Structures are given as structure tokens and as C-alpha cells.
């Protein structure tokens, strides 16, 4: 039998397509029982390839009931894929039903889907977990043959991925013959994802599609002066606008929502021709986003300024240029973005990188080199987050009575959880049952009860209901809807801002949102009311967690470029001049040592540590070093970090002997312990862990009076446990979480061990050229909500930076003019 039935072959021919080798490979792989991972560049028709075996099978033997489950990390993606899937089904006249099911699906449709499921169901990890909690889950998934996990590279190595892996494990226990198919963008180590995709000890088979054409990536060479610090790339707006003008359709990617708002504003100020340029980020209302998507699909837009919200999946057709504003932070991530341009395999995608400051120019060059060499970076796999396990255990118990041993098997069968010890499992199980307190003599509220067969069941309907309402791993900061008022109190909802930002506003304040200046009026009924206005110095909402640290791989490349002077020629002239000044005045950091500069500045001593280990690791290092400096009586005052380095200001000068005592792996012992216990960091982690593990529910806005009773701060629970039940399992879970998600301890430890005794201390009369961007990073110590502040202060900082450079030029006797 030919592997592609005639009906399909005709359809391919009709579309002018030929079956590609890897598509054939996927069809063959479909007949084996092994799980399969397809790794293909964007634009290769990955998703169709994933569905093809299912369509062929369903066409050969039509049936009722669920055959293929498709899981997407993005709700919006399921709609899009659904449309793309219906096209071949309709055109070939296949007897195949396909439907979506997400949090947005109306309940009557969900009911119907449970009774009469489609052949192909497109859903999200959360919706899948919810379906697995239904008493009739076995009936629903009984005949399931295949599960497709799309954009798998974006879920591996994060909590949502851990969550998905548990859902898959459970699914496999209900329908043992099930075959998993993963679809991934090109990544550094497909083996990692293949292990994740298969069950423990049984990695998926890899089908890899080579990307024949390398993208054409360039760094912007602007005639305007590139600043030393800052993240908004204001200097480059006219260049970006010119690039948009010359392109057909352009995607402008930025790294944070605040950047998106500001870049969008600045582009409109440049917009002499009134080009249709739109804004897109995750905080805009769904309606706004749908509108923009529709306009884009219809070819009515020339450019969209977007955050990572547009990074995944959705096919835009005619994009011929991608502009990345700001540092790329990681090569794989950059490739994903660049892949949004020119969705055809055989033509190169075209991209322009716009560094916002001179350090970022180095990072851009490092990324360009890596792309040139076909190298990628990737997240290292890490053990699964433990706070999801209570949720998972309860989810299973909501479905049917559970056998404690079977559930342990299912947990360890999920690759991220393969190393979970029986002891930890027992503790988490105890927590799930009754709160797991070690103290005796208390009547406990039981969420799980033992039945006659010795199995555990959910205690009552309330427990089940409460659990189902709280499925998931995304803990949102409190948010308020933004209502744009026109007349009186009439208006439309245009998006959301974080409660934290809203609290900082007083009536009359202006802020930028959804691309316009709004004036804050009041908070009414959980909504922030504001109307269009003209205002001076509008604030910009900042969002927690918008910043990604630079990948280790890119950091190493940056160091390599710095070290190898032949590489300097590739850099923009202004960057070259900056490096030459640094070389003349101080030293260029080398890959095998950590350069430490010390100089008097603003009446204190500044020490600059050029670690290149990423923002998070530098932040942690800053906390620990300042503690030890305190002990050494060096009187540290404050510190600030960037991806590249750490700057500490102190009243006393550091000697090289003291430096050796500072830069030691043992600060990960005493200082870390001390600091962890005092820092608000653990409380922050505990907040997340408390919600995900089911200890408390999502915290709602305080004006929701009905919820107030339950939502007293989890900090109080944390304090209570710390003092009276210090061995409670959730405390150690919170700690592990903090180490992983907030501290980047692993990366820091690696660095400290590598560079013991390999620090070079240079004392300078003044701040060095390379130190300027780091010293001037005003986001020091006030990570949250500081983005807006940074912006307002930027203008002055540039002036200051220029003045400092002038002084250095003078000191060096004008060797560079």
C-alpha cells in the first residue's frame, strides 16, 4: 500500500506541494509504537506533518470518538491551528471531526464534547488536566491513539512543562498504547526534549529537518549616537522607521511590555507617512489583540510592535522583515523570532538587530556569529517543580479512587519527576490529604479519604469543585482591567495593568497604555478608569517578570568577542571606539579570569565585577557579596546589576586580599543561608507554591469582599510554619523553587568555583568606559516597578555618561579623538 493515500496525494498535487522527506518519515514513524519528536525550522509545515498520520488513519478507518489530542501552550494557537486543520479536511472531504476546547469554550459545548467527542480535539495543558479530573475521563480517552504536543521547546524546562508532563503520564496510564508526537522549533539539543517527551527511560525517536537556508541577520549601523546605557533604543527610531518604510510587512520585537509601549509611541512620532503600525502584547484585551491579528492577516498593517506574545506559531504570511530591538538574550529565542519572517523554507529570513546600548551591541554580534555558525543555545533540563504534585494527586483523586503506589509510579514515569523520592512523595501526599502538619493533637480537615479498598478519594464535592477552579501553574499578580472612558462613565475595556502599578497612581496622573496617553481617574468595581489625555511625563506600566537573563552560551560568545581583537572589526564603529578606550584606560575582560575594577565615584568606592553570568546570577551575587563586605566592615551601600556585570558601592576601598576573601564559593554557605532566611524572596516563592499546591487560592483584588476571608496574606502562613513547623514540606518546596527560579544558584556556583583565585583587581582613578553602562543602570535594587523610573531618568544619565567619557578622553591624553 502506498504510504500516502491517493486522495491525499491529489490534494498535495492540487496545492502544488510535494510530500517532503520528513513528512514521509513522520508517516512511517506513525506505524511504530515509539514516541516521535519532529524538530523543524519555522515555516516547514510542522503542524500539518504532525496531523498527517492521524488524518490518513482516520480516513482509512473512520470512527466515532477521540483519536488524536493536540496540545498547544497558547490558547490563541488552538484557534489558529483549528482553522488550518479544517482546510485540508474540507478540501479533501474527509470524514473527520475536529474541535477546540479551552478555557473559553462555552459549557454546553464542553458537555457535548464529553458525551460525543470529536476525532481530533485541540486543547491546552490546563484543559487537558481538567478533563483528566472528570469521572468519565476513562471513557473519553479510552480510544485515544495519539497526542501531539506543539511548540514543545517552549514548555520544556518550566513549570508549565512539568505540569504537562504529568498530564501526559496520567493520560498514558488511562490509554496505555498512546503515542506522543512532539513538534519543536530547531533547538540546540533535541535529545533533551526527546527524553522529556518520552516516558522515563524511553526517549522519543527524533526526526530532524535541516534548515537549508541561513537567515540574513544584520546589526543596525546608525549615524546617531548609541547610548552607553538604557534599554529603549530611542537613538535608532528614525532608522527603524526607515526600515519599516522599505519593507512590505515588518515585525518589531521588543523584550518587555514597557518597551513595547514606548517603542510604539516613538515610532508614531516618526510616522510622517502615517503608516499603519500596530501594538501587540499580552496585557491588551483579547478584543484588541484579535483585531490586530485580523488586520495583520488581511495585509492591512505595515508593522507590529510586539513582545514575545507573537513569538509562537501563528502564521502571518507576508512578513518580510523582523526587527529585534534590544539584546536578543538567547540565540534560540532570536531564531524563533526571526523565523516569523518569510515563512518559506527555501528563502532566507531577513532580520535587523537594534542594540539599545553598547553592551547590547556585543551581545547582538555574539548572536549573529552563533547563527552564522549554526549554533543554538537551550535551557538545561531541571527536575520538576514539587508544588505541582499535590495538585496532580488531587486531580487523579477527583477522577477516581487512587492507589497510592500507582500514582507514585505515574509521577516518576514523567521524565522531569523521575528522581522524586518516596519520602518526598509521602510528605506531599500527606499535605494533599490534610495539610501535612507535623504537629499532633489537631483535628484535621481531610481532603482525601480512604475507602473500603484502601484507596484515596476526594472527600466531597466542594473539594473537587475548588480543585477544578484552581488547576494550573500560572500565578498571576493581581490585575485590574483598564477601562478607557469616552463620555461620562461609558467606555471600553482595553486591557489590564498590575494592581501594583495602579496603586502608585493618583488621580490626574498620566500613563501610556495600548499606545496612547491616558489620564487616571479612579478605580471602580475592579476596573481602572482612565480617559485619553495629553500629559507630560506619562508613566509606563511595568510588569513583574518581564526580563529574561542572557543565556550562558551567548555570555561565552560575548567574552570570546571581547578577547579576540579580530572580532572587533565586525562591530559598529562607536562600539569599537568604546572598547579601545577601555583597553587604553583599564583592561578588556578575558574569558579565563574575572576582571574587577575599583574607582572612586560619587564620593564612594565602586567595584565592578565583570561576570557575564546574567542578571539573575549577578543579582544573587550582589546580595551575597554585600553581606560579606558588611562583615569585612567595608560598609557597602548599594549595588546594581546588568546581564554583564555587577557594581557595588561602598564607603571603604577593597584590597586585593579582601577581594580574594570575597570571591569564594563559600559565600554560598553562610551568607546564602543567612540571607535566604531574611530575604523576602522565600516569601515570594511561598506565595506561588501556596497557590499551585492548593494551600490557598489565587489572590483576588482586595476589594472583592467575599474573597477577603480566605485571601489573607500567605506571608502569615509562611511565618507561622517557619516558627512552629519548620519541617513542613511546603517550606522546602518554596526554598527549592526560589533557588531555581529567582537565584540562578547553579550558574552562580559554577562561576564561583571556576574563578576561585582568578580575579584581577585594577584600581582606577575614575569610572572606566565599560563600567559606565553598569554603574548607570538605575534599576539598582528596585527591580519591580522600576522600569518607568528608569525611563524618566534616562535623559540625565546620558548627559552624565557623556561627561564621564570626556573626562576619560582627557585622562588618556586624547589618544582617541
Amino acid at each position, binding site marked *: 500500500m502506498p504510504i500516502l493515500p491517493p486522495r491525499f496525494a491529489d490534494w498535495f498535487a492540487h496545492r502544488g506541494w510535494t510530500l517532503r522527506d520528513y513528512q514521509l518519515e513522520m508517516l512511517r514513524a506513525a506505524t511504530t509504537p515509539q514516541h516521535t519528536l519532529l524538530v523543524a525550522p519555522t515555516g516547514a509545515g510542522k503542524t500539518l506533518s504532525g496531523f498527517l498520520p492521524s488524518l490518513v488513519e482516520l480516513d482509512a478507518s473512520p470512527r466515532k470518538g477521540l483519536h488524536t489530542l493536540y496540545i498547544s501552550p497558547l490558547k490563541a494557537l488552538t484557534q489558529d491551528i483549528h482553522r488550518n486543520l479544517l482546510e485540508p479536511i474540507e478540501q479533501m472531504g474527509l470524514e473527520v471531526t475536529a474541535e477546540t476546547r479551552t478555557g473559553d469554550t462555552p459549557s454546553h459545548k464542553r458537555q457535548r464534547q464529553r458525551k460525543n467527542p470529536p476525532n481530533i480535539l485541540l486543547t491546552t495543558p490546563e484543559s487537558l488536566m481538567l478533563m483528566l479530573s472528570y469521572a468519565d475521563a476513562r471513557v473519553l480517552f479510552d480510544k485515544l491513539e495519539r497526542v501531539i504536543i506543539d511548540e514543545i521547546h517552549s514548555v520544556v524546562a518550566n513549570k508549565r512543562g512539568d505540569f504537562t508532563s504529568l498530564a501526559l503520564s496520567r493520560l498514558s496510564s488511562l490509554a496505555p498504547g498512546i503515542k506522543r508526537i512532539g513538534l519543536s522549533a530547531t533547538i540546540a539539543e533535541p535529545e533533551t526534549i526527546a527524553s522529556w517527551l518520552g516516558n522515563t527511560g524511553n526517549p522519543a525517536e527524533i526526526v530532524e529537518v535541516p534548515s537549508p537556508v541561513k537567515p540574513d541577520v544584520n546589526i543596525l549601523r546608525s549615524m546617531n549616537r548609541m547610548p552607553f546605557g538604557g534599554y529603549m533604543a530611542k537613538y535608532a527610531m528614525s532608522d527603524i522607521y526607515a526600515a519599516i518604510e522599505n519593507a512590505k510587512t515588518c515585525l518589531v520585537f521588543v523584550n518587555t511590555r514597557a518597551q513595547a509601549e514606548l517603542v510604539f509611541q516613538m515610532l508614531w512620532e516618526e510616522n510622517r507617512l502615517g503608516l499603519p503600525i500596530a501594538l501587540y502584547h499580552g496585557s491588551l484585551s483579547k478584543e484588541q489583540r484579535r483585531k490586530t491579528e485580523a488586520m495583520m492577516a488581511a495585509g492591512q498593517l505595515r508593522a507590529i510592535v510586539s513582545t514575545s506574545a507573537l513569538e509562537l506559531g501563528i502564521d502571518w504570511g507576508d512578513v518580510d522583515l523582523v526587527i529585534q530591538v534590544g539584546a536578543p538574550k538567547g540565540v534560540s529565542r532570536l531564531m524563533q523570532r526571526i523565523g516569523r519572517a518569510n515563512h518559506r523554507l527555501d528563502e532566507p529570513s531577513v532580520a535587523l538587530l537594534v542594540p539599545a546600548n553598547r553592551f547590547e551591541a556585543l551581545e547582538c554580534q555574539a548572536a549573529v556569529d552563533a547563527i552564522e555558525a549554526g549554533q543554538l543555545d537551550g535551557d538545561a533540563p531541571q527536575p520538576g517543580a514539587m508544588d505541582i504534585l499535590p495538585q496532580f494527586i488531587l486531580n487523579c483523586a477527583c477522577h477516581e479512587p487512587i492507589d497510592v503506589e500507582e500514582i507514585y509510579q505515574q509521577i516518576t514515569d514523567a521524565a522531569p519527576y523521575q528522581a522524586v523520592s518516596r519520602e518526598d512523595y509521602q510528605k506531599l501526599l500527606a499535605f494533599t490529604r490534610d495539610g501535612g502538619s507535623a504537629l499532633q493533637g489537631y483535628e484535621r480537615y481531610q481532603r482525601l479519604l480512604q475507602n473500603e479498598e484502601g484507596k484515596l478519594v476526594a472527600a466531597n464535592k466542594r473539594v473537587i469543585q475548588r480543585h477544578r477552579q484552581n488547576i494550573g501553574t500560572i500565578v498571576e499578580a493581581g490585575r485590574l482591567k483598564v477601562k478607557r472612558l469616552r463620555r461620562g462613565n461609558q467606555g471600553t475595556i482595553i486591557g489590564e495593568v498590575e494592581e501594583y502599578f495602579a496603586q502608585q497612581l493618583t*488621580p490626574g496622573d498620566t500613563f501610556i497604555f495600548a499606545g496612547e496617553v491616558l489620564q487616571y481617574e479612579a478605580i471602580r468595581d475592579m476596573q481602572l478608569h482612565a480617559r485619553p489625555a495629553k500629559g507630560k511625563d506619562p508613566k509606563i506600566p511595568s510588569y513583574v517578570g518581564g526580563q529574561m537573563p542572557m543565556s550562558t552560551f551567548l555570555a561565552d560568545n560575548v567574552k570570546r568577542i571581547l578577547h579576540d581583537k579580530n572580532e572587533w572589526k565586525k562591530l559598529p564603529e562607536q562600539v569599537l571606539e568604546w572598547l579601545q578606550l577601555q583597553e587604553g584606560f583599564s583592561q578588556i575582560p578575558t574569558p579565563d579570569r574575572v576582571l574587577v575594577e575599583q574607582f572612586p565615584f560619587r564620593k564612594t568606592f565602586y567595584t565592578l565585577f565583570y561576570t557575564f553570568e546574567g542578571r539573575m546570577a549577578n543579582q544573587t551575587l550582589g546580595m551575597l557579596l554585600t553581606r560579606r563586605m558588611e562583615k569585612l566592615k567595608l560598609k557597602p551601600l548599594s549595588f546594581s546589576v546588568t546581564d554583564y556585570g555587577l557594581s557595588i558601592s561602598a564607603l571603604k576601598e577593597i584590597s586585593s586580599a579582601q577581594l580574594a576573601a570575597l570571591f569564594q564559593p563559600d559565600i554560598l554557605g553562610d551568607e546564602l543561608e543567612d540571607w535566604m532566611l531574611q530575604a523576602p524572596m522565600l516569601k515570594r516563592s511561598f506565595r506561588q507554591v501556596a497557590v499551585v499546591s492548593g494551600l490557598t487560592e489565587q489572590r483576588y483584588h482586595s476589594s472583592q469582599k467575599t474573597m477577603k476571608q480566605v485571601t489573607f*496574606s500567605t506571608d*502569615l502562613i509562611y511565618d507561622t510554619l517557619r516558627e512552629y513547623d519548620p519541617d513542613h514540606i511546603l517550606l522546602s518546596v518554596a526554598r527549592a523553587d526560589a533557588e531555581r527560579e529567582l537565584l540562578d544558584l547553579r550558574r552562580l556556583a559554577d562561576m564561583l568555583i571556576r574563578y576561585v583565585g582568578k580575579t584581577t583587581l585594577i584600581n582606577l582613578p575614575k569610572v572606566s568606559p565599560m563600567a559606565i553602562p553598569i554603574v548607570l543602570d538605575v534599576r539598582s535594587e528596585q527591580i519591580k516597578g522600576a522600569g518607568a523610573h528608569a525611563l524618566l531618568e534616562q535623559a540625565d544619565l546620558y548627559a552624565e555618561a557623556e561627561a564621564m567619557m570626556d573626562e576619560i578622553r582627557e585622562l588618556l591624553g586624547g589618544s582617541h579623538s
Partner: protein
Amino acid sequence: MAVTADWLYDAIAKRQGVLVKLANISWLLHAEGVAFCPAHDTLLVSDLHLEKASYLARSGNPLTPLDTYATLQRLTKLIALFKPAKVICVGDSFHDVGAFTRLSSGDRAELSRMVEMPTEWVWILGNHDPDLPADIPGKKRKQTIVGNIRIVHEPEQDAAYQVVGHFHPKGKVSVNRHRLRGKCYVLTENLLIMPSFGQYTGGLDVSDAAITRHAPKAGRQCFLMYEGAIYTLNERTRKT
């Protein structure tokens, strides 16, 4: 009375308390959430909300049932510190009418020991605990008097001076760009609102209308408790 002038002076110097006047009597508002009146050797505490966790647990929140234990531990320590002749709990001492029956045997014994510590113990009834079972030791009252000050759970119209609980006031203050939040005392010329003492009690911002109705911003002082110290809250009246 264990409290001496030197001790008081020292506590104030360490920011462990502030001295205020209500109805011309001095009160030490302590940073751990109790108010002490030297003239009457009386200690006030409010809104213990004992057994709140077990109450919430019944609706499906697997909270650790340690709040009662923790609350009693903290309060016992403070009573031992001040050694007052009289302790008055200003209402909502128990989270609900069934709370007393849910106490663990250990906590129940601890509670009895604590109530025996001063010469006199008064439970003021609150909206959460309008009825207290007879086997709880100590007096139960709708209100009581200290000097010429009425002690009652919720403010009443006809009182010249009164100390109340009920509102769980909390506030925030900015110090060097850090925002500190904490429970508060709110004081006007004739009213003192106590902070809530219970381990698992949340708070209502002092700017909430429910509080400003009784203590308008213009004529009040707020004292914020933060990690064992007490600060005067600087309330700027917002420009409109």
C-alpha cells in the same frame, strides 16, 4: 505591676512602643499589637480570631492549624512581660461560635493557663463571637470601662471616649524606596482602634472608608507595626 518607668523609656527608645494619650490617660501602644495602660494596670488586645484556620479548612483550604497555638504563644509572652492586673480582649477573640469546641486539648489547656495569669480577664463580645460558652474562663461582657473610656468591639455613637477593635487596620509606608506594610493603631482625640492580633488575620487599609468614617484623616494618627518596631505613619492628604 512589672512595668517601670525605666523599662518604658527603654522600650520607647528602641521603638518597641509609643506613648499616647487618650482621655487624658497615657497608653503604651506596643509594637507587638497590645496596648498597655499603666494608670489602670490593664492590657488590651483585640481580634485574636482563634481557630480561623480550622474554620477555613472546613471549606476546603488545607491550612495548617497552627494559628491558635501561635496566637496563644505570642500573647502569653506579652502578658508575662507586662504582668498586668487586668487583660481585656476587645472582641472577635474566637473566629466563630463553634471555635471553642474545635480547640485542641493542648491549646485549650494553654488558653486556661493564660486566662489565669492576670487577676482579672474580660472577653468583650464581638460580631464573630457574639456568644461565648460558659466553660471559657474569664468574664464575658458586651463592653467595659477603663477610667472614663469605653472598651467595646465596634464604635458606638454615644461614647465620649472609646477603644475598639473590629477593623483590623493596616497601612503602608515608604522608606528609602522600600515599601513597608504592617498592621496599625489608629488614634483620634476620642477613639483608639486596635490592630488585630490573631496569627491569620488580614487587614483593611487605613484609607478605607469604613475606617475614615470613624477616624477622618485630618484628625488622626496612625502607628504602624513592622518587625518588632513601631512607626508613625505620615499620611499625606492626597491632592485631587
